């Protein structure tokens, strides 16, 4: 039996940054920016929703407590360091991500500055976690990205005016 990698009590797998970089740049190469963004945002959203649902079930926590637990696991898993400033009454605000694993993977593989933000999967992932946690549809858009040589990745959170 091979040794399993456990993160936050969950059996996990690890990829090198280079592998992640190859995976994600390949998706953009094949589907183009728009196609890849559509695929990755929605995939990320489904992953985020499922993750928060599972955490809700395991920890029996809700709302901010659940959100903080999800963030803590993501930090342990090496996603980067999340900080959020969101008004959960209006569902408006921003999420900062320091050391985004995705942007760093991208940079490590391509070795060059990008023309657009590359953490679309994480934008969807954040939306999915918020949606499952607060049962409200939101749209998350990456405004700044390490891959654009910004200091951090900045995600804008807005209520999905078309979603409900």
């Amino acid at each position, binding site marked *: 039996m091979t040794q399993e990698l456990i993160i936050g009590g969950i059996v996990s797998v690890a990829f090198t940054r280079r592998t992640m970089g190859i995976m994600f740049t390949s998706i953009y190469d*094949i589907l*183009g920016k728009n*196609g890849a963004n559509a695929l990755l945002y*929605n995939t990320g959203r489904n992953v985020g929703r499922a993750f928060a649902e599972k955490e809700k079930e395991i920890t029996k926590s809700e709302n901010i407590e659940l959100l903080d637990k999800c963030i803590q696991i993501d930090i342990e898993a090496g996603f980067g360091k999340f900080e959020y400033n969101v008004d959960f009454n209006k569902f408006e605000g921003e999420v900062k991500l320091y050391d985004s694993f995705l942007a760093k993977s991208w940079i490590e593989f391509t070795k060059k500055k990008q023309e657009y933000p590359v953490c679309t999967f994480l934008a969807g992932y954040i939306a999915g976690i918020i949606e499952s946690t607060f049962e409200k549809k939101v749209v998350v858009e990456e405004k700044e990205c390490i891959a654009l040589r910004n200091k951090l990745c900045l995600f804008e959170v807005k209520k999905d005016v078309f*979603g409900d």
Partner: protein
Amino acid sequence: MKKELLDNILNDLKNVVSIEASAIVTRSGLLISADLPQNMGGETFAAMSATILGAAETATLEMKKGVPKRVIITTEEEKIITVGSGEKALLVCITSDPNLELVLEELEKAAEKVEKIL
């Protein structure tokens, strides 16, 4: 307000040509407005439509043939037609209308209206 206007565009389209399902979707695959059968997953349909149109753009640009005007998927019974609607959105419908010319014409008109609203 915008939502209502966009819903109206899909309703108007349905009144002119025979359409089983239609949706207005952002380029990043989020559903803006939809008129879909109950058994159809709107979110997946939206993401799939945006991904297909995006991939088609890559294919035609790669071949140096410009930006595609539309993507048509033909099955035994129906056609799924996706058209771009400016930089922000796209319009997709499922139709079995035999008058494809008319459907395309009406879809283009609807796509222009959507672009103006968004």
